[in-house]
């Protein structure tokens, strides 16, 4: 059974169909890429999955349970966490407090064997955030803030993680390190849905890729198939996509 399943979801903004019959699935231990040009509807897919956007039709299932009518917090409590393309940190709290809040919220439901502080410390270690962890979140650089958002999502111990352009604002070595972390999380059993414009990164770490254009899935497959797909090359990758082997 898929950890996360999106079935034929459509969203309309006024006269504009932002999504049309989009379906996708995320399995445990898999990193799934969702790519496409700007305005293709990637963030809207995330908003539908997390409950911030009501779909016109279609369903969202977490662990086989239909959560389409659930409030955002109910969905999160079923083991889902996300980051935001335009960062949504708690600006008046420090980076550490951002993580603490998330860990404490996590402890209000489900079983909790490890104390919140410990969980927060291990996230700080994992993502190497010691340098700026006690700064207020609204003065962090974009790259730092993205790490804090990821850390905040991780301390809720999600089964499925939705990342909205997590590598933008990271330099080459940070991206390399970041890719390693995501692969490690997947090996530990987490399902990851990744929206990202860094095509080499996506091609390198994703097991499965969906390509979205004008609100429709125009291609789906393993990275090798996607790179060869003429529609994807036309709509997004371009002929000189420079994708590494």
């Amino acid at each position: 059974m898929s950890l996360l399943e999106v079935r034929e979801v459509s969203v309309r903004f006024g006269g504009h169909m932002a999504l049309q019959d989009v379906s996708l699935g995320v399995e445990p231990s898999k990193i799934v890429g969702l790519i496409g040009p700007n305005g293709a509807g990637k963030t809207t897919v995330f908003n539908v999955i997390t409950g911030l956007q009501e779909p016109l039709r279609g369903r969202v299932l977490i662990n086989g349970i239909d959560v389409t009518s659930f409030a955002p917090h109910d969905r999160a409590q079923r083991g889902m966490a996300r980051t935001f393309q335009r960062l949504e940190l708690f600006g008046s709290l420090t980076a550490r407090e951002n993580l603490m809040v998330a860990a404490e919220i996590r402890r209000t439901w489900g079983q909790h064997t490890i104390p919140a502080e410990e969980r927060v410390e291990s996230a700080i270690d994992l993502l190497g955030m010691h340098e700026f962890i006690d700064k207020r979140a609204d003065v962090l650089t974009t790259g730092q803030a993205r790490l804090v958002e990821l850390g905040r999502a991780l301390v809720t111990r999600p089964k499925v993680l939705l990342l909205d352009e997590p590598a933008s604002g990271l330099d080459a070595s940070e991206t390399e390190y970041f890719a390693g972390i995501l692969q490690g999380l997947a090996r530990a059993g987490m399902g990851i849905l990744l929206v990202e414009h860094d095509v080499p990164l996506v091609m390198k770490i994703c097991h499965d890729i969906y390509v979205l254009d004008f609100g429709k899935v125009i291609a789906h497959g393993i990275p090798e198939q996607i790179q060869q797909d003429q529609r994807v090359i036309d709509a997004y990758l371009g002929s000189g996509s420079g994708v590494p082997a």
Partner: protein
Amino acid sequence: MDQFVTYTVFGVVLAAIYAIAASGLVVTYTTSGIFNFAHGAVGMLGAFAYWQFHVKWGWPTLLSIAVVLLVIAPLIGVFVERVVMRGLQGVSEVTKVVVTIALLFTLIQVAPVIWSPKGSYSVQPFFGAAKIDLAGAGVTYHQLIVIGVAIVVAAGLRALLYGTRLGIGMRAVVDNRMLAELNGARPDRMSAFSWILGSALAALAGILIAERIGLETVALTFLVVNAYAAAVVGRLTSLTRTYVGALLLGLGQAYAQGYLPDNPTWFAERNLDIRSLSLAIPVIMLFVVLLLIPHARLRAHGIVRSRELIPRPTYRWSLVGFGVLIGVVSLLSGALSGEDTLIWSQGLCFGIIMLSLVPLTGYGGQISLAQMSFAGLGAYAIATWGGGGNPLGVVLAVLLAAAAGILVALPALRLRGIYLALATLAFAYVMEKVVFNQRALFPTTSKPVDRLWGLESNRAYLIFLAVVFSLVGFGIVWLRRSKFGRRLQAMKDSPAACATLGLNLTVTKLQVFILSAGIAGLGGALFAGANRAAATDSFSAVQNLPVLLMAVAGGIAMVSGALTGGLLLASFSLATRSIPTLELFGVDAKSFFENLFRLAPGLIGITLGRDPNGLVAMVSDKVKRLWERRLQHRGTRDLPVPATRWQQLVEPVWAVESMGVDTPFVPEEIARIDERLALDEEEVRAGVFA
């Protein structure tokens, strides 16, 4: 049948006036993003100005109306926009709301200064009692004119907002101010125009309804509650639905007045009067609509860089502070007269009531305009069950207020903050008009109260209040440092992120609202104890305004801010009392100063946009800066003044600088860019909207 037609016409006329008032509210809200609580007060001023020109000075009707709508109302609008609203960039929704409430309070206080409450004011309907016959019922020309005006306003607004460049520009400015500006719109001009239009519509509604409800400051001002109810049907944005809401409301009120039976004997025997419920119809409608509105859609909005700070006090310094408070009160109270002691006691009680706003508004970003009404319930509880100083009275005061809090908050908390502010204001209005004036609850307007544990000495009671303030204050410091405090702050910063992390926002808001109402109930019980009476006029709807204003002025996110706010309120009433009778340059200076002190909470509130962190933060910031300057370079002059704390937070993030441009363009560079873009100077100057 005749009767039915009469009531229907009456309902439609009421609806027309509500619709005009509500559409003014909607116009300002959709075009400036600020919900103007002072809208009704502007209508009230318009009605009084009309009386001045038409009745007092005998100007012709049309000329008087024209001067009010084309000169007075626009002047108020421009003043509000220029002086008050323009400083509100980068402040939270709380501060925006509070500033309009300060304006509301100021206008309510200004009107009686110009038009003495002792005078009698009334205006006649247009064309007197002349009427035409409609299905057997008489319809006056005034009524026909009102309905006609509402139709013209609806058509005009629609044409303006959707069919003209100005209107489209106004909407663009709300959607994205910076983008609109980059495209040549002039946000300041658009914003000023929308305030002018809003003020004129408010004044128009005020003039049209004045012949019916009379020229009474508070009644006219609170008429706006009815307009809110209509505007909420249109979710504060849709003009069509706002008109539908107004129609439902007007007809509902007319039929209720016409067909509701006299007070049934069963109620009369129990000293209850259900006829006053007809006053509550707009509020009931507001609550029903709030229940029907679907959950607010949570939006991600990026990191909010606010100028507002939420200090994190240490336990040690808090204990020192509370110790100093109790010590100072113990010492000074010995030197105070009995009456002064009483006023400072009231100040500490206000401080406790203001403490209730610290977690709710300061940490959680939710606004309540009903804290004094919860306090009133607390006062009722102690008067009823606290006989002989029984502590049960205080316990029940807290519980009763908290229970009422649940009732008010439940429908509104699912929605955005502004709806909670509206719902609480409506609740305060119902408490005053329908609940507190039931003879079964308050046989007269005041009910005797025994002080807790028989603390008869005013001095002992004052010290006791300082201890209670310290205990509650310490609890709030603890809360601020606790998980719950962090969660509240997170909720204020980003509701969307909280929800996607699994936090149930409604439950969290409800928890803090119950806590807050309970503290207000406690404050009310102690306040009644200080006065030895629970007097209903202390807990009227208007009384909520100075409490919120002074809490914000002191510092809404600080325990010390609540104390400062409470003591300031007390000092205003002390100062008002102690002004000697004197005349300066032939003017009665006593009443001038009295009015000034009465206005003070409003005037202080209006300036909040300049420093939303309140007095305590402002003073401590200034002291710190001076100190740092001295330490850094003793004896060196002309040092740059260190940035204030919020400047340090905000300044590095100006959009242009974050794009890598850190020095302004010089004219040559601008010319070069224009050349590259093939723009000629004329085109640039003309812009898109000019």
